[in-house]
């Protein structure tokens, strides 16, 4: 039972901190942080499945996050009919060419023995295929991108409800992980890290530069929402009544009717943004809880024990007849699919898809820091890591600013050192995260909430 006390204490402190932000900054900011904490928690669950359960090092988290985000665009945006008319045929032809290339390559690989000739023919098929692709795609892409380029200029999506895109994002990321896993999982740990890092970079650069797909760096804005819009709330009767009811004591203090109406309007505006964020919080919390229950069950099932056995001693597990390659591939796909889900959730929360913002620092390394700080191999730990690190990532700058002001308060306002430090306050987040990681790795390598083995 002592272990559970630790967990409860750690989570209570975290929630207390978020409430503090609500009191001192604003409830809207606190809820934004909480929502991002929950999204980070989903990502860390995914990364923790790969690293904590199976010891696979995947530095490609950014790529799967971006794919999840792409899924939101592909599923929820209304299709651009004109773009499909002018260039859809070429794109469909390209998909068939890619499928044909894959089948021809597979056929050659299966049919002929390993030889130089085989290698050259595979290479020439791929090269010829790429040239054919470019010739087929070029006119189509040009036509699509010239359809009202300021607003669309891309194929659009399927126009389905946005929540479906979460599942689609997971599927997309999972299927990509299948391909990458097939290619890269045989590599040694540090090679795997580098390879996945670079493959993620390739994925993001494709999403960034193929504008017919999702507008690339021009961004897609105004995505659908699974929650009501603020404007609708502010004009609906029941919501205003609700706000009046909650704030009746405050409103009663104001005497003049004009002032009262003004105060009420301001309250309604504030409350509508809080309400929308609360809706998101509810959705995300549901996802986190479902994932937590499933992963927790999996961890303590025979399957989880098998994964830990493979992680701790591959040779012994292999000698017991476990198929290590297959299990690694499975866990790679599962973890990546969860990360893809998180990516879709994040884009839904933001309401916009900005491929230019996917950077390895923010989407790969920070997530890894979360897993390691929180506790590898323990889902509660990983989620806590997501909360703690995201909180620090956001709040480091204000805290640093406060501390700088405190320590340099004896200096005049125009002092060069003081001005410079205040200007560079946002970068203290890197310092905090880095030092945090180094200290945890050194003095508590299992993380805040260590892995717990239940003997059965």
């Amino acid at each position, binding site marked *: 039972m002592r272990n559970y006390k630790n967990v409860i204490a750690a989570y209570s402190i975290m929630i207390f901190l978020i409430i503090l932000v609500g009191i001192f900054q604003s409830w809207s900011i606190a809820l934004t942080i909480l929502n991002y904490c929950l999204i980070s928690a989903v990502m860390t669950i995914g990364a923790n499945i790969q690293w904590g359960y199976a010891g696979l090092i995947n530095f490609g988290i950014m790529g799967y996050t971006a794919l999840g985000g792409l899924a939101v665009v592909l599923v929820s945006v209304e299709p651009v009919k004109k773009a499909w008319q002018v260039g859809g045929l070429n794109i469909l032809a390209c998909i068939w060419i890619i499928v044909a290339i894959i089948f021809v390559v597979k056929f050659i690989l299966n049919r002929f023995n390993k030889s130089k000739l085989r290698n050259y023919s595979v290479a020439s098929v791929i090269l010829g295929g790429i040239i054919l692709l470019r010739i087929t795609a070029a006119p189509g892409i040009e036509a699509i991108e010239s359809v009202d380029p300021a607003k669309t200029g891309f194929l659009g999506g399927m126009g389905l409800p946005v929540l479906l895109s979460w599942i689609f994002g997971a599927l997309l990321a999972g299927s990509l992980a299948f391909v990458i896993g097939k290619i890269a999982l045989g590599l040694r740990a540090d*090679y795997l890290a580098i390879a996945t890092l670079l493959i993620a970079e390739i994925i993001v*650069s494709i999403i960034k530069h193929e504008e017919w797909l999702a507008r690339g760096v021009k961004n897609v804005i105004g995505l659908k929402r699974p929650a009501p819009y603020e404007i609708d709330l502010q004009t609906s009767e029941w919501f205003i009544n609700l706000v009046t009811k909650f704030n009746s004591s405050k409103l009663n203090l104001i005497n003049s009717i004009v002032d009262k109406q003004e105060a009420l309007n301001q309250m309604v505006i504030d409350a509508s943004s809080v309400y929308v964020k609360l809706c998101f919080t509810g959705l995300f919390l549901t996802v986190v809880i479902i994932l937590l229950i499933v992963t927790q069950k999996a961890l303590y099932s025979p399957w989880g024990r098998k994964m830990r056995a493979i992680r701790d001693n591959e040779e012994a597990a292999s000698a017991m007849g476990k198929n290590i390659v297959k299990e690694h591939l499975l866990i790679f796909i599962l973890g990546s699919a969860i990360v893809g889900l998180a990516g879709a959730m994040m884009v839904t929360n933001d309401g916009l898809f900005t491929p230019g913002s996917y950077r390895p620092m923010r989407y790969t390394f920070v997530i890894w820091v979360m897993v390691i700080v929180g506790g590898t191999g323990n889902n509660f730990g990983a989620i806590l890591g997501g909360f703690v690190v995201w909180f620090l990532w956001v709040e480091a700058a204000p805290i640093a600013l406060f501390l700088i002001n405190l320590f340099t308060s004896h200096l005049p306002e125009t002092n060069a050192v003081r001005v410079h430090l205040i200007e560079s306050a946002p970068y203290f987040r890197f310092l905090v995260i880095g030092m945090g*990681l180094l200290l945890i790795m050194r003095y508590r390598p299992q993380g805040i909430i260590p892995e717990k083995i239940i003997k059965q």
Partner: protein
Amino acid sequence: MDFLNAIIVLFNFTVIPALAYGSQLALGAIFVTLIYAVLRFANFATGDMMSFGTMFAVILTYYFQSLGFGLGVLPTALLTIPFAILMMILYMLIIDKFVFSYYRLKKSPPVQFAMVSVGVMFVTQALIRIIIGPSDRRFLDGEKFIIKATEFKEMTGLAEGITLKSTQAITIIVTLIVVSIMFWFLNRTKTGTSMRAYSDNEDLALLSGIDPKRVVLITWIIAGILATIGGVLYGLDKSYRPFVYFNNMLPIFAAAIVGGIGNPFGAFLGGYVIAFAEIFVTYAYKRFISYLLPEHLEPDSLLQLLSTDYKFAVSFSILVIVLLIRPSGIFKGKVI
């Protein structure tokens, strides 16, 4: 004549930039490979360490310029490199003392080292941004061009010209000097031999009386020299922007692995392989071909295999292919 023009076009737009870029990558790749061979981990802080060294060079360049020191036609930055190297080595030794040495004594697995180097990466990035800020800085002074295109055209009477920037020439020359000294050191001196022995077989090296502390110290010193020079040369050629250095780490890793990680000579050539591949695949051959073909056959399209947006993707794809076909790299794993 047309043939000569075609060659010059190709030379001007691909070979010279690729040689300069390849040299910068090569220095970084040797740095990665050396750390990998002797200290046995993939250093994810590579790009930021190069940036850190460059930062000192930039600050000192501004300081020297304000004092009026300079090298005339050569950039002042060359004068500041030795001081920057000293600061860089000091920083690396501090990092090693407080961070890496603990895990080395514990004989931690390479993955743990890699994660620790991610922590170092964060801290280094923070320090750089706090000290100098994230903005774009140019610190090149002195003569900008050695050969200008117009002068070349006048001299030879050809339709195409060659432009040779002084930074490109300096990059190639300095890289060749540094790399030859380093190979001489590794292959001919006693200390270099002891480093190779340590990287080949740690236990045997310890048995024959090689001091591991000294080997590690010298590795960091060489690493500091390579990182600073590589970073300063890149900064002179393009400009100094901290986040660009982080991105450069990725092609540098690609170069080190393509060349066979742990093999400095492989890393040196790997840098050029990556640079030439990136530039040759993304170069538009229209002008080159139009000189070679008769006029009525001139191509309409740019004849570009991939757009320049995919520059990095090319090097990463090469890396993935190499990892698949020959994980030990082109020059097989003779560890330093």
